[in-house]
């Protein structure tokens, strides 16, 4: 599998990563190199291997349903560019 510059442009937009005209060629090439590695992996015989959701041979630990986090709004909000009345302010989003 390989991808071309149209795919890279679309991915850039989806991921909100600026892909400039100067580096689009290089980005396309290096991602294609990664995909070539994936192609190589695809050729391995996995008929007897179960699909794996995580490489660690472990299962998820669970947490008790008890409140352990208190209000730290005053610590977090100074990190944001804009806040008002306890709300984080962001550029207007309309669907």
């Amino acid at each position, binding site marked *: 599998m390989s991808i071309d510059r149209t795919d890279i442009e679309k991915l850039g937009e989806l991921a909100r990563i600026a892909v400039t005209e100067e580096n689009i060629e290089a980005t396309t090439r290096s991602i294609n190199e990664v995909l070539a590695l994936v192609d190589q992996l695809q050729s391995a015989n996995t008929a007897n291997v179960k699909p794996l*959701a995580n490489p660690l041979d472990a299962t998820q630990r669970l947490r008790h349903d008890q409140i352990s986090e208190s209000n730290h709004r005053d610590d977090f909000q100074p990190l944001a560019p804009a806040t008002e009345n*306890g709300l984080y302010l962001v550029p207007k989003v309309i*669907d």
Partner: protein
Amino acid sequence: MTWETVIGLEVHTQLATQTKIFSGASTEFGAEPNTQACAIDLAMPGTLPVLNEEALRMAVMFGLAIDADIGKISAFERKNYFYPDLPKGYQTTQLEKPIVLGGHVDIELADGSTKTIRIHHAHLEEDAGKSLHEDFHGMSGIDLNRAGTPLIEIVSEPDMSNADEAVAFAKKLHAIVTSLEICDGIMAHGSMRFDVNVSVRQLGDELGTRTETKNLNSFRFMEKAIKKEVERQIDLIEDGGSVRQETRLYDGDTDIARSMRSKEEANDYRYFPCPDLLPIEIDQAYIDAIKASLPELPEARHQRFMEQYQLSSYDAGVLGDDAATAQYFETTADQCDDAKLAANWVSGELAAKLNSEDMPIQQSPVSAEQLAALITRISDKTISNKMAREVFDAIWQGEGEPDAIIEARGLKQVSNSGAIEVMVDEVIANSAKQVDNYRNADVAKRPKMLGYFVGQIMTASKGQANPQQVNKILLSKLNALL
């Protein structure tokens, strides 16, 4: 042309846990903005999610209640998209291995028959925050208290064929999750939200193109939105056009639906397994233990209400489907010892009042205990039904306990037959002319003539004489004079 409608539902159900699905922050509704959004909910670097065991248990309870398979190994995926109320840039959800697979919910149709709606699956995921679009100097406000609240998204098969069936299905789901006590079911808080997939086709044709109307938060809005969308699609096709696959928004207050301006790639979520969370493994013993502790489900309660309280199937449905209503009714009925009256009051006066104030029964200003005490005063004939409604309103307004209100307002009905006899004797003695007329009147006309006497007696008693007793005593005294 005969059109057929095909409807499928996706139901976002907030789980009634104390804390978020992946963090120890509180999920309580109504807190000050962002006071319940911790570092994990805000997606601060270096944080790791840990699954809430209660969220998992509640999802398994739901699966067992609808006869589904439980995924013994389930896993979380990341659904990637950018929106300001989703701080991580992805929603942690389940795709390949959801916790609940298959199952079914049976609904009762208007003609009394039963229809089975199949469930495709239900999965665990996190809720997003809330965007407030009021104007903050040209910006939007974000409250992340809701971010990370555990949800199960219940996905039905497209088995419903009109708005009524979709509403019946949604109400049944509401009854199930509230009975299981895994969701508070308060629609006004967004505890259950519906996405509706609708398509139309001519009878026998292949499935038509569907649209999705998102985020409907009441049964009534859902019904209106479906009817409107079905009409729109049929009009479109009959006018020679075609339905475009799109996501739509419906505003219940204005009854206006519109297409969401969304770019083509918006639906490219690039799911992949979440590396921060390991697969969840549960065993049969865990499932069996939950199965053994499942509370009574709506269908069983419906049956029990009919038998235990002698209710009609209709009343048993009205009172028994919603767990909070059922609990209120049972407390009332058990404490007042008159199930029939309790049923009438809960489904009548109380329901009407709650409805007009748009208030869930959990927040009723009249408690089940107070209503039971009020009904007891009707049963023991202290007050009439009419007086009871006055007392009910007074309790609602916060004037205190029923007995105190009855006392304070002097509402006691006079049922003491001695007292009533004295009043009847007085009225008869002062109404010689009317008594003569009564005596000389035709037998058939006499009952009508009683009205005068009853009116006089009720006036004398300031409306507090028990009308049945007044009638009985009056009749026997008049007849004795014949």
